[in-house]
């Protein structure tokens, strides 16, 4: 694997290998084992947009594996002086072995990959894709259910601008999941994505009635309505806080159903859910470290040993 821009860059077999490697690396992510597989390698964290979990979990993943990290942010850099993305990425091509990029503009990751030689990992491009989040989401779902096949996954909230659900839905249908898409009309999944999902032979249901979907769900994937993605503030006000989940809503849920969220959450999941056995979003955030460890090893051509001790 070279660049990871969308989930189309990975075959199902490659995804399964990455998830297997991630599982092997769990003791390293927890700090129980030190395994310097990436010693001498440098990761450039190119964050042109805010991030907490993604940036930090990439940094932790690299450091737990013995590598080092360059952190970039737009404040105090030449970007504030008007430097193009092309020029900024040219510089990093000479400084690092792998680049992780998050950018507010859609297509920025593919553009960077075309501009430079070192592998580029897309950590979110506008409302486009977020494939490394998808890897940790798949890992979390597989960890909870033992499989990805045949599950009914309910994606809830901002499906229009939510890049996590764009990448995740593509990957899930490839593994035979059934998708229920819950959103208000103004935040429905983009038509080209629904068309892609159906072309894959996926069973996709679209609805705005969240409560009716809870009982049949194996996974409920909540998302935040992202104020920063709306071109018009009035449109945001119409849908803010439209879907919420509290512990009281879960009485009819399947016992094994898990609730996920890419975080940060605002009002979508009430803290009362945190103590239920359904809640997986903090575990999901931890899983970002192992998923990204596996990915970094893969794109830097480093083999993960079958037994990690």
């Amino acid at each position, binding site marked *: 694997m070279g660049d990871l821009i*969308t989930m189309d860059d990975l075959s199902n077999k490659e995804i399964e290998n990455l998830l297997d490697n991630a599982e092997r690396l769990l003791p390293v992510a927890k700090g129980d084992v030190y395994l310097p597989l990436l010693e001498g390698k440098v990761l450039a964290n190119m964050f042109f947009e805010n991030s907490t979990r993604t940036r930090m979990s990439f940094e932790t993943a690299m450091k737990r594996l013995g590598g080092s990290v360059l952190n970039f942010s737009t404040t105090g850099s030449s970007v504030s002086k*008007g430097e*193009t*993305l*092309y020029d900024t990425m040219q510089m990093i091509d000479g400084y690092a072995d792998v680049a992780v990029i998050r*950018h*507010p*503009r*859609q*297509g*920025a990751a*593919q*553009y960077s990959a*075309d*501009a430079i030689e070192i592998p580029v990992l897309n950590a979110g*491009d*506008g*409302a*486009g*894709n977020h494939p490394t989040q998808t890897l940790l989401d798949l890992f979390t779902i597989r960890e909870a259910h033992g499989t990805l096949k045949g599950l009914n996954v309910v994606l809830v909230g901002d499906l229009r601008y939510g890049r996590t659900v764009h990448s995740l839905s593509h990957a899930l249908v490839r593994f035979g999941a059934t998708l229920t898409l819950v959103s208000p009309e103004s935040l429905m999944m983009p*038509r*080209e994505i629904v068309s892609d999902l159906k072309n894959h032979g996926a069973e996709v249901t679209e609805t705005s009635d969240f409560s009716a979907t809870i009982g049949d769900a194996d996974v409920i994937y909540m998302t935040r309505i992202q104020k920063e993605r709306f*071109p018009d503030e009035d449109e945001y006000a119409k849908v803010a806080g439209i879907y919420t989940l509290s512990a009281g809503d879960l009485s009819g849920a399947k016992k094994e159903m898990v609730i996920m969220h890419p975080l940060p959450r605002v009002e979508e999941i009430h803290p009362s859910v945190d103590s239920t056995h359904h809640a997986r979003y903090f575990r999901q955030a931890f899983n970002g470290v192992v998923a990204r460890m596996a990915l970094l090893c893969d794109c830097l051509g480093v083999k993960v040993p079958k037994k990690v001790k």
Partner: protein
Amino acid sequence: MSEMRRVTAICNGTVVDHIPSGRAVQVLKMLRLDIGRSNPISLVMNVPSAKLGRKDVLKIEDRELSQEELDRLALLAPAASVAIIRNYSVAEKLNAELGDELVNIARCSFWNCITQNAREPLPQKLRVVNEDPLEIRCSYCGRGQDMDEIVDNIL
């Protein structure tokens, strides 16, 4: 009455036949023939056609279309037949062929695509995802582009 009698034969130039009915004006824009050109152009619209039912025809005098222009034409009129005319005779017959990727033909229409920054130096690239029905997406941001948007964003 055939369309060939609606407009006189041209001595030298290009005849673009079998343009889907109503698309000739868009073809002119797509080929950038609507601005700053002095070549005489005859445009025939909505004439009967055995192949298409109705069709448009363009006759461009004293100008032979290049392969790059034919690639642009393929977007709007994939079934078009192109004849290069020299001294009132058909010298060459060409077909418009749609490639997999359209490089520097149109700018992505999506307001938040990375390519909206005109100072970014990499080429504009649109990818042909499907030919029939025609589906085109930006190679960078992945957004679908409809034909009116492509014509409006011609480079």
